[in-house]
């Protein structure tokens, strides 16, 4: 266990540090305006003064997509152990998996007919 994960953990630590080291280097090397202007740090909105904040409510279709995503992501999580050992599990597991996917596809058809997967 540790044999496998120790290198991965060290790798992750190195990968994690790269971005922050670069940001730190940029902090030292980057030029800085002597007299920063007021408008420079304004939020960009094509030259206009920004109207209100951008932290707004967005369209519910994103929530619908997220919900359907969770459904299929959990399904993928259930598929992985089966996929790993198709040879060993035999006919029972095979039929079981077809049933499982068929039930999920019913849900998919329902979402499709309801227009949840339509983007407009």
């Amino acid at each position, binding site marked *: 266990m540790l044999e496998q994960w120790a290198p991965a953990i060290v790798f992750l630590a190195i990968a994690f540090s790269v971005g922050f080291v670069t940001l730190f280097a940029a902090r030292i090397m980057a030029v800085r305006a002597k007299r920063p202007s007021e408008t420079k740090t304004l939020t960009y909105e094509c030259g206009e003064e920004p109207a209100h904040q*951008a932290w707004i409510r967005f369209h519910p279709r994103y929530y619908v997509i997220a919900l359907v995503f969770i459904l299929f992501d959990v399904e993928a999580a259930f598929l992985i152990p089966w996929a790993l050992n198709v040879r060993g599990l035999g006919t029972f597991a095979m039929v079981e998996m077809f049933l499982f996917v068929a039930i999920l596809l019913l849900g998919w058809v329902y979402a499709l007919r309801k227009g949840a997967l339509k983007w407009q």
Partner: protein
Amino acid sequence: MNEALELLANPWIHGFVFGAVIVTALMSVTAYITWFERKFAARLHSRMGPTMVGPKGLLQPIADGLKMIQKEDIVPRDADRLLFNAAPAITLFFALAVAAVIPFSPGLLASNLDIGVLYALAVSGLMGFPVWVGAWASNNKYALFGGMRAVAQAISYEIPMVLSALVPVVLAGSLSIGQIVEYQIEHGWFAFWPPGPGIFAFVLFMLTALAEGNRIPFDIPEAESELVAGPTTEYTGIKFGLFASAEYIHSLLASALGAALFLGGWDGPFGIPVFWMLLKTCMLFVGVTWIRWTLLRFRSDQLMALCWVYLVPGALGLLLITGLYVHVRG
């Protein structure tokens, strides 16, 4: 020499040495990929591309990097400073983290996790979220819209990507990328053998990898003509550079993953294994770049319809057929 080898046998030191080498190599390769892409795009457009900095413009990436790191760091007044600053570095972290399990040759890999495929998919799927965090933290409407589109696209295409990557897992009966490659060396590359599901899964995998990396034709999140620069609108200098290199690294590692899972990894008729792995990765990456400079972009609704109406059930069917094949043939 022997002492050095003994030191490498220690997993922590092994991880440090290989981690440092692979991460450094990836970062420098990524810099030169920008040069290659500009030259390549220029050829497709009948232009010259970068020519001024160094012979054939070869020093251009270094000049770009120096320029970006010296640029003034502008944080919008209304932004969430902490998240705004952290997001680019974390995006790069998730992009680089995939490389931990990619075997370039039998000995040249950071960590041979026995759940390598799962790890790679999980980590590369996470990359969409820090992009969204950065977009949200910018407090800019273009950035937020771009970020929402990016994350919706990333989670949608993750499902066909996971399902298509499970096809080699079913065929090889292992989640370790190294073992999948070895199985292919013995039985033939999955893209061609067994004929049928492998090639579809391969095409599907590369397609969804394009979409996950927000590359053309799936780059509606940063559609310049409507969203300025998408999630990265407010980012300047090296922070934008980190986002850009994370995107390149993601495409590059997706190509490497595609080469390892479907094209036999380091398998080749002669010579050293690492050469073949790098060659296949480069070929796939050139293909990805070629697509980028050839196609137009899809609309948001076309993108979502393609994924949910066609790719998801298609990938499910493909996986079941592969399972049935393995079950019948044993």
